[in-house]
């Protein structure tokens, strides 16, 4: 195709097909929340929460995740961060303007929220809370409840209803999953969050095809 296609007769059906295909391809390339990323996220959640559950199940009294499980957790998280960064760099390459500034502002708000979740965990430990709370129920559920609530409010402001539904469901899952106790909470939230992410990925694929 070149500048000389000026005189090229473009059939309306071909124009409609070209417009649809180009729009779909561009949206896919600019998309930061690709279904594939959510499927990978589901696997990461299942592995991370799964190994923690394997290391704590049957503990009496509850002492917390074993060192090997934490090593697997941090390795999995590292892989996840690399995957997300790669997807993000590809999607945002060459894009500038309002949404790029918005993403920086979002990060500036959400990173401190993540940090305070773990500062508060330190405060619980300092106050003498039991291992079941400090190394069980709190780290399994609190990050999802706190960050999920912030994400729900953020998406309400943007009228992004599918993501509001996802965030609220994740918060509810974490809150209800906490009743499973310090060991069971890892399994319940791990499986539940994995299912939610897969459902969200399927929903996104369905919406795109509709």
């Amino acid at each position: 195709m070149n500048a000389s296609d000026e005189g090229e007769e473009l059939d309306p059906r071909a124009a409609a097909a070209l417009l649809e295909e180009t729009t779909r391809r561009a949206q896919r390339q600019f998309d930061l929340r690709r279904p594939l990323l959510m499927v990978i996220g589901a696997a990461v959640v299942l592995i991370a929460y799964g190994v923690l559950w394997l290391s704590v199940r049957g503990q009496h009294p509850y002492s917390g995740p074993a060192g090997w499980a934490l090593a697997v957790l941090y390795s999995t998280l590292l892989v996840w961060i690399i995957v997300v960064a790669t997807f993000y760099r590809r999607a945002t390459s060459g894009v500038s303007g309002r949404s790029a500034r918005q993403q920086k502002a979002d990060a500036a708000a959400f990173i401190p929220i993540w940090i305070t979740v773990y500062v508060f965990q330190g405060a619980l430990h300092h106050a003498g809370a039991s291992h079941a709370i400090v190394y069980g129920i709190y780290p399994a559920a609190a990050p999802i409840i706190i960050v999920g609530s912030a994400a729900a409010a953020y998406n309400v402001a943007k009228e992004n209803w599918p993501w509001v539904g996802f965030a609220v469901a994740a918060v509810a899952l974490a809150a209800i999953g906490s009743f499973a106790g310090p060991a069971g909470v890892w399994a319940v939230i791990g499986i539940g969050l994995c299912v939610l992410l897969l459902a969200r990925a399927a929903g996104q694929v369905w919406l795109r095809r509709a």
Partner: protein
Amino acid sequence: MTTEELDPLIHVPARLRIIATLAALPDGDALSFTRLQDMIGLTPGNLITHLRKLEDAGYVDTEKTGNGTASRTTVALTHVGRTALDTYTAALRDLLAGL
């Protein structure tokens, strides 16, 4: 309705792809010339020719920053361009409905 009623500036394969690609970005965002070229698959010369026509009509806005090897050109769809694409899409839909 006939094909003559479709915006002749958009109703060209290369420019239709340029406009549709830029329209996929959120309002207020711009795309670098190199990424746009990569996505559209045109040579730099051809892309410049088409962009100049779109810019003359007020459909896109190009901005060059920096000098020499550090220079960077960004392209953004204007409100006029977005409206023109909406009008073109509606006209195309009417045309296809009548076929």
